[in-house]
C-alpha cells in the first residue's frame, strides 16, 4: 500500500474510532459511573443518527423533513431526541435491578429498530436516508474532507471527555459512585437514588445520540442496517471493559485499541483463501466474543483502571 493510501486508511479508522470513543464515554457514564446496564446502545445511537439526518438533509418527500438546517443543529437535535427517548425509557425502567434492566434495554433497542424499519413516513424505512451533509462539505472535497471530519469528530470526543471528567469529579459523580457501590447506604445518606439514575441514563443516552449523529454525517447515508444492533452495542461493551470501566481516559483508550484490533483483523482475514473471505466477519465476531471472555476473567479492571479522585481536606 502506498503511503497516502495508508495514511487515509488510518484516518478512516481514527474517525470511526472517535465515534466509538464517544459511545464508550457515554456507556462509561451509565455503567462505569452509574452501574446501569444498558444493552440497547444501538437503539439510542440510531435515534441520534436519524434525528441529525432528518434535521440537516434537504427537503424530501420520502421521509420526515428534511429541514435543511446547519449541522450543529442536527447534532443538538440528535442529543435532545436521544435524551428524551432515554428519559422515557429511564422513567419506566430505571428502578429495575441490573439483570432486569439489561433485559428491558435489549427490548428497547428492538422496539426502536422496529419503529425505524416500519415507520417509513419518518425514516424512509429500509431504503434509508441519502444525502446527509458533511460539515464544511462545500469547502473541501475528496480525501481532504476526511481530514476535516477527523478534526470535527475528535473535537467532539475531547468535548465529551471534558464533560464526563467534570461529571466524574463533581459531587454529583461522587454520589453516583456511592449509589453504584452501595445503593442502600447512599439511600440512607438521603440521596434520591432513582433521580440520580434517571439523570445518568439521560446524559448517557444523549451522548450516544451525538455519536449516532456523527456517524450519519460521516457516512452521508443512513439505513437501518447501519445500526446493526449487535455490532455497535457489543463492541462498545468490549471497548469499555477492556479500557477500564469507570475511567474516562480508559474508555477512550479502550475504544481506540479495540477498534484498531477489529480493523487489523480485517487486514488479516482478507489474506484468507477466497472461500473463507465471506465468512471472515464471523471469524472476527468470534474473536471479539472470546476477547471479551478473556478481559472479564483476567483483565477486569482494564487498561487504565478506575482511580477515585482524592478527597480534598480543606
Amino acid at each position, binding site marked *: 500500500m502506498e503511503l497516502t493510501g495508508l495514511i487515509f486508511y488510518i484516518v478512516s479508522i481514527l474517525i470511526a474510532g472517535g465515534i466509538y470513543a464517544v459511545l464508550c464515554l457515554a456507556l462509561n457514564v451509565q455503567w462505569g459511573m452509574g452501574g446501569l446496564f444498558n444493552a440497547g446502545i444501538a437503539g439510542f445511537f440510531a435515534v441520534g443518527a436519524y434525528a441529525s439526518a432528518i434535521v440537516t438533509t434537504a427537503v424530501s418527500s420520502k421521509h420526515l423533513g428534511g429541514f435543511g438546517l446547519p449541522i450543529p443543529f442536527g447534532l443538538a437535535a440528535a442529543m435532545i431526541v436521544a435524551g428524551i427517548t432515554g428519559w422515557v425509557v429511564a422513567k419506566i425502567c430505571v428502578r429495575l435491578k441490573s439483570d432486569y434492566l*439489561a*433485559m428491558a434495554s435489549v427490548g428497547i433497542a*428492538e422496539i426502536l429498530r422496529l419503529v425505524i424499519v416500519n415507520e417509513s413516513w419518518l425514516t424512509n424505512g429500509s431504503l434509508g436516508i441519502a444525502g446527509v451533509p458533511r460539515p464544511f462539505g462545500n469547502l473541501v472535497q475528496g480525501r481532504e474532507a476526511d481530514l476535516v471530519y477527523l478534526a470535527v469528530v475528535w473535537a467532539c470526543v475531547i468535548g465529551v471527555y471534558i464533560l464526563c471528567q467534570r461529571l466524574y469529579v463533581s459531587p454529583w459523580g461522587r454520589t453516583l459512585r456511592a449509589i453504584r457501590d452501595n445503593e442502600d447506604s447512599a439511600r440512607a445518606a438521603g440521596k434520591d437514588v432513582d433521580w440520580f439514575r434517571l439523570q445518568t441514563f439521560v446524559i448517557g443516552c444523549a451522548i450516544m445520540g451525538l455519536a449516532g449523529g456523527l456517524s450519519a454525517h460521516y457516512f452521508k447515508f443512513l439505513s437501518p442496517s447501519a445500526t446493526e444492533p449487535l455490532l455497535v452495542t457489543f463492541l462498545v461493551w*468490549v471497548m469499555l471493559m477492556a479500557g477500564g470501566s469507570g475511567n474516562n481516559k480508559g474508555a477512550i483508550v479502550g475504544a481506540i485499541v479495540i477498534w484498531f484490533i477489529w480493523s487489523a483483523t480485517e487486514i488479516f482475514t482478507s489474506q484468507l483463501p477466497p472461500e473463507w473471505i465471506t465468512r471472515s466477519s464471523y471469524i472476527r465476531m468470534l474473536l471479539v466474543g472470546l476477547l471479551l*471472555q478473556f478481559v*472479564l476473567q483476567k483483565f477486569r479492571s482494564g487498561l487504565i483502571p478506575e482511580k477515585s479522585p482524592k478527597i480534598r481536606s480543606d
Partner: protein
Amino acid sequence: MIDFINLYLVPGLTIGSVYALGAVGISMIFGILRFAHFAHGDLMTIGGYGVLTAVWFIPIHPLLLLPFGIALAIVSALAVDQFFYKPLRKLPTIYTVIASFGVALIFRSLAQLFWNSGNQVFTSGVRMPVVLFDTFRISELHMQVISLTLVIAIALHFFLTRSKLGRAMRAVSDEPELAAVAGLDTEKVVRWTWVIGASMAAIAGVFAGMDTSMHPNLGWNLLLAMFAAAVLGGIGKPMGAIAGGLIIGIAEETATFTWFSDEPFISPSYKSAVAFFIMVALLLFRPQGLFKGRLL
C-alpha cells in the same frame, strides 16, 4: 371465530410452546445460578442446527433426530459454563450477564461459520393442514409441537416433584444457603440445570426452525419473548415459565387480531413489542410473576 382459532390461537399456542421450552431454561438458570442468560436464544439456534445437520445425513423426520440437537446443545452449554461462567461465579452476577452476552455472539458466529448465514429448511415441500370436524385446519407440525410440549411439561413436572434430583434443584432455587447446609451437591445441581435447560432449548430451536426456517439469528430474535415468559411465570418456577410462554405466545398472536375494527389491533410488524410491554409492566407491578417466583 373459526378464523380466530385457526389463524391466531393455534399459531399462538405453537410459538408459545417454543417460548415455553426456552423460558424453562432461562427461569431455572436465573433461579439457580442467579443471572439472566443472554445466550439462551443462541443455544436454541445451536440445537436447531444440530438436528438440521443430522437430517442431511439421515433423511428421516427431523423430530426423530432431536437427540442429536439435544446432545450438541448440552455439550455446548456445559462447555461455556465450565470455561466462561464458572470462573466468574464469585463476582457480582452482572459480570456473568456480560459474559453470556459474549457467549451469545460466540454461538452465533459459530453458527454462521459452520452452517452459513442464509435460511435453511428442514424439509421442503408444502404440507396440507389437517382438517378436523370440517372446521379446524391445523398443520401437522403445529399439532406435533403443541402435543410434544405438553408431554415435556408433564414429564418435567414429575421430575421436579418426584425425583430426588428435581427436588434438590427446587431447593437450591428457593433457599440456596439452606440447601447447601442440608448437604446438597450444588455443582451437580448446576450441571443438571444446564442439561435440562439446554435440552429444552434445543427442542425449542428445532420447533422454531421447522415452523419457519433455520437461520443464525433465529434464537436471538426469540430471546426477549422468552425472558418475558420467564418473568411472567416467576423466576425459578419452571412450570410457571411454561405457562408464561404459552400466554406470551397467545398474546402476541391474538394482539394482531381484528378485535375492535377491521384493522388489526396491533400491526403485525410490531408483534414482538407485545412481549416487551408485558415484561416491563410485570417487572414494575408484579415482579414475582404469576407463580410467586424469586425476586432479585
